[in-house]
């Protein structure tokens, strides 16, 4: 596959800094060092005991039930879990995107040490888009249907970075080329309905990264796309990550996607993280019964009989408060300890944690 170098001008800060010091280092590593000096252990995103309760017509939904997660500068963290396990709710909570009147947050989200829940409206506006970018599952509906795509990207540049119309247009074209949309000039004036899903997702990505965010939150970015386009989008995301040192929080329910581009992975079940660790560690030695069961469900080529396995049972009622392990009723290894209280946090090797009482 043809790869296009992201134009230098887009990321002029990096160019300036790369002129001094580390000659041979890639831009990403350079930026990584800048953001996070190796001698200091620092986190870009530190989620501590996050709970998100949503007020709905059916009652209070406890969508996220105490999540601890961290994203280091420059890494790609995958969050996997079945539908309804709170992945997207958590992702939106990072930029406080939920309807304030119907959502109750507790816990803390620290972004570069700043508390997101303590931000005032203006700070939050600068934080969204400026330091975080977000892409959504369905690009068709995530773009304004009646504005040309180029103008939508240019708008971000004008609003967030104070570009003039002309500058914004030029930069937009460069961004479009960076996400491999050609010819950029002609595509600039096209409307969302004139483009394919894959192309729109590239536009979304261009828009989300136009202000050089430190963290890109990708909420199932490839779910609505077919497999070949998926690969291209993942490739693009990885390139952005490597070349810009931009961290990515990738939400998906596809283990293949995780294996493809993530450094670390967190497995979520019913609003909690059940296991988190390096991709290789988790895939090779899944410690939580849920992770094991999930990985067991991934169909393998040449796996003999064409049996699609599933996990028996259903998700617990998310409108109820629970303290004990929520997976226990579906867990083949469940014992007395499981119902006795919150699952114990247990380290399994470096950076690999599992929440299981067994």
């Amino acid at each position, binding site marked *: 596959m043809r790869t296009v170098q992201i134009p230098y001008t887009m990321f002029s800060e990096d160019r300036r800094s790369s002129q001094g010091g580390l000659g041979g280092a890639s831009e990403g590593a350079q930026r990584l060092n800048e953001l996070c000096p190796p001698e200091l252990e620092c986190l870009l995103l530190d989620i501590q005991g996050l709970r998100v309760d949503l007020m709905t017509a059916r009652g209070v939904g406890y969508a996220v039930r105490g999540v601890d997660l961290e994203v280091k500068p420059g890494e790609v963290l995958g969050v996997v879990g079945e539908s309804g396990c709170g992945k997207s709710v958590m992702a939106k909570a990072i930029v406080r995107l939920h309807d304030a*009147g119907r959502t109750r947050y507790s816990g803390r989200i620290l972004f570069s040490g700043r508390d997101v829940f303590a931000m005032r409206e203006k700070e939050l506006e600068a934080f969204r*888009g400026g330091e975080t*970018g*977000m892409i959504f599952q369905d690009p068709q509906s995530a773009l*304004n249907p*009646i*504005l040309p795509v180029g103008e939508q990207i240019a708008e*971000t540049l004008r*609003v967030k970075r104070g570009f003039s119309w002309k500058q914004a247009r030029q930069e937009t074209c460069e961004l479009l080329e960076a996400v491999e949309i050609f010819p950029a000039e002609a595509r600039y004036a096209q409307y969302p309905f004139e483009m394919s899903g894959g192309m729109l997702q590239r536009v979304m990505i261009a828009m989300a990264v136009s202000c050089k965010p430190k963290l890109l939150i990708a909420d199932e970015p490839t779910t609505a796309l077919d497999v070949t386009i998926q690969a291209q989008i993942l490739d693009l995301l990885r390139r952005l990550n490597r070349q810009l040192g931009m961290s990515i929080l990738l939400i998906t329910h596809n283990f293949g996607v995780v294996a493809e581009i993530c450094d670390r992975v967190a497995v979520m079940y019913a609003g909690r993280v059940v296991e988190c660790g390096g991709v290789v560690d988790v895939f090779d030695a899944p410690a939580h019964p849920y992770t094991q069961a999930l990985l067991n469900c991934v169909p393998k080529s040449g796996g003999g009989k064409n049996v699609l396995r599933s996990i028996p049972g259903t998700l617990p009622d998310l409108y109820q408060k629970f303290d004990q392990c929520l997976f226990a009723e579906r867990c083949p290894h469940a014992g007395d300890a499981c119902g006795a209280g919150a699952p114990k946090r247990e380290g399994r090797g470096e950076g690999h944690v599992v929440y299981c009482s067994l």
Partner: protein
Amino acid sequence: MRRGRNSGAFFTAPILITGVILTAVAVLTFFAPVFAPMDPNRVALSESLEPPSLRHLLGTDQTGRDIFSRLLYGGRTAVQNAVMVVGISIAAGIPIGLACGYYGGLLDALVMRCWDILLAFPSLLLGFLFVSAFGRGSVATVLALGIIYIPMISKLSRSLAMTEKSKVYVESAKSLGYSDFRIIFRHILPNCLATLLAELTLDVGYAIIGLASLSFLGLGVQPPTSDWGTMLQEGVALLRQNPLMSLSPGFAIVLTVISLNVFSDGIQAYLDIDQRKLPRFEACE
């Protein structure tokens, strides 16, 4: 042949016909001084209540004024005032409605209850109220009707904003850190424009009728200024002697309002891709 998004006919028969009528009304009334054969207020008692002739196309009224000229000048007053009424309702109704729909909550509840109270007011009563406050004349009636129209357009914008607000593109705009103001006016409003436009065209028609009824009751435009509503009223007493005195402004009102309604329908049909009249296969290949 590949076409852009504007394929399909805008100029369908109804739009074409009503478009011509509306353009004619607009041009004839706006440039009344050019087209009117004589001064609308020229009194000639010797020529009173004449039937139509070449000199007086629609005859004359009891004081010998030329009805055709008065019709054109009267139309100018009526149309201008109607547009002003709609202008007032747009200026206040759309931003308030969009904000209510977008924010919801207490603001929404309060404003909507105010509108409910306003809607419960008969427009005539409010007209009387304003006339007693500001004195007779078109200012009072335009203001009264403008205020009466705010709730309707406001409620429409509100419900449109509520629908749009839950769409993903608004969420994505929020995730980019746009201000609420920008999201409302740059992203939500343009997406509501199609429906609003059709509604506003319709409102101009209603405003013409509303103003005419107020004038008919002697509240609005004061003589000798000509106005369709005033003319209607003046002619009623002399319906036997010269029916054209009332019939011509009446017909003008009906024609304009019907045209506006049909035109508004046409716009809506064009803006809705599913309803839009598309060319035949043969014409495209």
